[in-house]
């Protein structure tokens, strides 16, 4: 019975420095009702003693919003990458295994450096340029139906789970991964954003871009926000096919 359980056991993969080897450390902490992985990690931070009773350093992790919208607290929990804020202890098999998302450089313990995703967003121009030297006025209106559709794509929080799940995002490849690709679809769908559509498409036709997708479709299975990532990728495949034809054979649609 869950309610009779006195303690919660954790096996945490730790790493002291970015370049030092990882090691495992076990923790056993008192159970409280409605705990999640974050509150358990907070308990370890409050009293950093491992399962052997030895004093140790507090486990390092990242967190921010605590309601699964910021993506900062992503880690691999019992083998699957997800947010630790919505990982409820009562729903997890014990001992609970926590690991960092190794697709990204590990900073320390469970903290990783997700910079590559933010660099990718810059690379694909995942924004709408509206600044000018004078007032450009209101942009074209967006139909409500399309806004609702685009909202689903805008839920991406750059958490990195899809990159962690993707077999083609690894140290041997420079694939930018599903998240930034889907953002291209989002910004190209926007009436003002569409003005820079070709630029974004050409960015993902570059090295490490869209064509590196191998269709394992792990991303869409793993996305905590249920974003239709593989539909985005296939839709972009169609767009870049047309763009490639335009570039080579010529088109007035610049």
């Amino acid at each position: 019975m869950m309610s009779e359980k006195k303690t919660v056991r954790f096996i945490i993969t730790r790493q002291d420095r970015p370049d030092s080897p990882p090691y495992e450390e076990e923790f056993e902490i008192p159970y409280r009702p409605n705990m999640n992985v974050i509150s358990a990690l907070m308990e370890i931070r409050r009293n950093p003693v491992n399962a052997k009773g030895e004093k140790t350093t507090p486990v390092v992790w990242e967190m921010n919003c605590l309601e699964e919208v910021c993506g900062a607290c992503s880690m691999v929990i019992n083998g699957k990458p997800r947010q630790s804020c919505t990982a409820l202890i009562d729903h997890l098999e014990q001992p609970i295994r926590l690991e960092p998302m190794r697709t990204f450089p590990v900073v320390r313990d469970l903290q990783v450096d997700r910079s590559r995703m933010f660099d990718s967003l810059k690379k694909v121009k995942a924004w709408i340029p509206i600044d000018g030297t004078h007032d450009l006025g209101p942009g074209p209106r967006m139909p409500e139906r399309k806004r609702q559709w685009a909202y689903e794509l805008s839920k991406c929080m750059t958490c990195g789970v899809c990159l962690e799940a993707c077999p083609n995002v690894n140290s041997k490849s420079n694939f930018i991964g599903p998240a930034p690709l889907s953002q291209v679809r989002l910004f190209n769908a926007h009436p003002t954003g569409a003005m820079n559509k070709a630029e974004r498409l050409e960015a993902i036709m570059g090295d490490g871009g869209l064509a590196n997708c191998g269709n394992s479709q792990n991303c869409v299975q793993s996305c905590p926000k249920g974003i239709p990532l593989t539909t985005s990728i296939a839709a972009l495949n169609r767009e870049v096919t047309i763009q490639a034809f335009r570039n080579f054979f010529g088109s007035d649609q610049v």
Partner: protein
Amino acid sequence: MAGNREFFYRRLHSLLGVIPVGLFLVQHLVVNHFATRGPEAFNRAAHFMENLPFRYFLEIFVIFLPLLFHAIYGLYIAFTAKNNVSRYNYFRNWMFMLQRLSGIITLIFVTWHVWETRVQAAFGAEVNYEMMANIVDNPMMLGFYVLGIISTVFHFSNGLWSFFVSWGITVTPRSQQISTYVTMAIFVALSIVGIRAILAFA
């Protein structure tokens, strides 16, 4: 096209796998199926293919060059993946892994097969029913051929599925699902054609 090399190579790889390599595969399996009608029927069909006009041109540009590019670039693609089916036990992830595995098996099989048949023909051997019958007389070789054929046909059929996604033809999950059924039906059908043919030599 500067800076677009990777995109171009990937798309070329995807295209060549279907046209012409995939089409050649289907043609090859169909011609081999003549073996089920007896040695004479097979020899006639093989002889017809052998005497096609522009034979060397067709062999080089329809078979060998596209196949070579597809194989070499495919190896690069296969070895840049970090397979993770144990952690992400999903159907498409398995197909992703099997596509790479079958690609490597197919490359080994096709290399051996070309050496045993086309290269020997260049050295003066005659490609006919007897040649194949002698090869698959060895049960080990028959097993290798059956595995090779199934692997090749799987790689083609599942590759066709990826082709439709990569070129933006099947976009919705529903169309991709139907595409899975259709390509797997092609896999079964072509496997029957190929296995019937090889067993006709045994």
